[in-house]
């Protein structure tokens, strides 16, 4: 059941192209604004880039994640979720896997644009960046999926979603930015391994808790 929900989400996102194009253009605007705001030489771009990348990824993710349950609400599918003969947590895991994959796809599309616009010289470091992105994306979508289910049926959904998500996602942003900075600086792995560990611990804790509390969100 998990993989079917994830597959359905991914397929509908990629087919409608509504979210993916709005996320793409939003990220493009973020990149352009940052490049206007800071004059980038090689040194300052190494300093600022990790932060800029994760602000762009994080905000772009918020656009996608916030709408994660919207299609279900519009098509009256929330009730059907309750009828599925699986534990409620499985629905969460499916939505979460779909969101994480989708976010990762968007990040993989966006990352070459950073290399292009900011003249980053990180091609050989791509596997490490990918690993960090994976860890951070899992954490962000774990929280984001839960809060999306929480806020989707209330008034002022667009306001409440980032207000709830961003304070709690602080450790992800710190961990991802610091690990990315380590990679960009060409530091040896042990220097920033702790940050990746922090991201993984965070992922584990939040997937577990969300899995457990999701039952209460659907079950009213």
């Amino acid at each position, binding site marked *: 059941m998990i993989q079917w929900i994830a597959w359905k989400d991914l397929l509908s996102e990629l087919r409608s192209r509504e979210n993916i194009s709005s996320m793409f253009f939003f990220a493009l605007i973020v990149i352009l604004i940052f490049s206007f705001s800071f004059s980038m030489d090689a040194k300052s771009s190494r300093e600022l880039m990790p932060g800029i990348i994760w602000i762009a990824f994080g905000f772009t993710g918020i656009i996608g994640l916030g709408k994660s349950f919207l299609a279900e609400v519009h098509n009256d599918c929330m009730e059907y979720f309750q009828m599925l003969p699986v534990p409620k947590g499985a629905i969460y895991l499916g939505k979460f896997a779909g969101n994480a994959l989708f976010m990762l796809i968007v990040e993989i599309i966006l990352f070459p644009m950073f290399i292009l616009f900011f003249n980053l010289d990180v091609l050989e470091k791509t596997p490490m960046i990918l690993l960090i992105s994976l860890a951070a994306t899992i954490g962000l979508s774990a929280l984001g999926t839960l809060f999306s289910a*929480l806020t989707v049926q*209330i008034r002022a959904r667009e306001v409440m979603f980032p*207000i*709830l998500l961003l304070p709690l996602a*602080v450790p992800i942003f710190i961990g991802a930015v*610091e690990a990315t900075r380590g990679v960009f600086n060409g530091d040896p792995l042990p220097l920033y391994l702790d940050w990746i560990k*922090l991201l993984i611990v965070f992922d584990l804790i939040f997937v577990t*808790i969300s899995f457990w509390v999701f039952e209460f969100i659907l079950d009213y």
Partner: protein
Amino acid sequence: MIVSRLIARLQRYEGWFGVAAGLLIMVGLYMGLVTSSPDYYQGEVVRIMYIHVPAAQSAMFAYTVLFGGSVWYLWKRDPIVDNMSHAAAGIGVFFTLVALITGSIWAKPTWNTWWTWDPRLISFAIMLLILVGYLMLRTFLEDKEKEATYAAIIAIIGFVDLPIIHFSVEWWRTLHQPLSISTRGVSIARDMLIPLLLMSVGFYLLFAYMLMVRTQMLYLQHLLEAKRGRMLSKVHL
């Protein structure tokens, strides 16, 4: 229902909590501001500690009560516990703000800055954001039962997240620069310890008093809404 009975029993002595809190805080303030000696290093500035430290303790206690209440609510669905959690969050915002503002005033003369990116400060600021988000979420939900459940979930996740935030910020700072603020020694003069203890206990009692009054107010408010007859079946009491 155990909790409701406990609350009902405690409420009989509610007034005494308020009186005791008031007395302790008055005596503690007098001793702290007038009779205790100024600090060897910080001089008279240290006296803000007698408000700052108890406020911070009460804020953390409020958050612990909120977490406990939220877990209990999800488990037992006891509506009065939800009212208590709601009350604890509101009072928590008050104490967190007092702690942050007095801390800022204290930081200016001692650290020569209003704000620094210290783990404890950041965790407190984020705790404030979580509490405000919690209260905002509650205002946007019509269905009382849904409101209680969703709010409880936010409170639980926030409570688990706070230590992670604290440690991640601690690492973030310590990996890049030496710790600029070290914790001061635990040895504290007796004439400073006694007013501090009095204030601490006074603030805890004040919190308990505020919690009881506010819980009743919220309960009565829900009762009133129900009695008005509007959406009678939907109101969660």
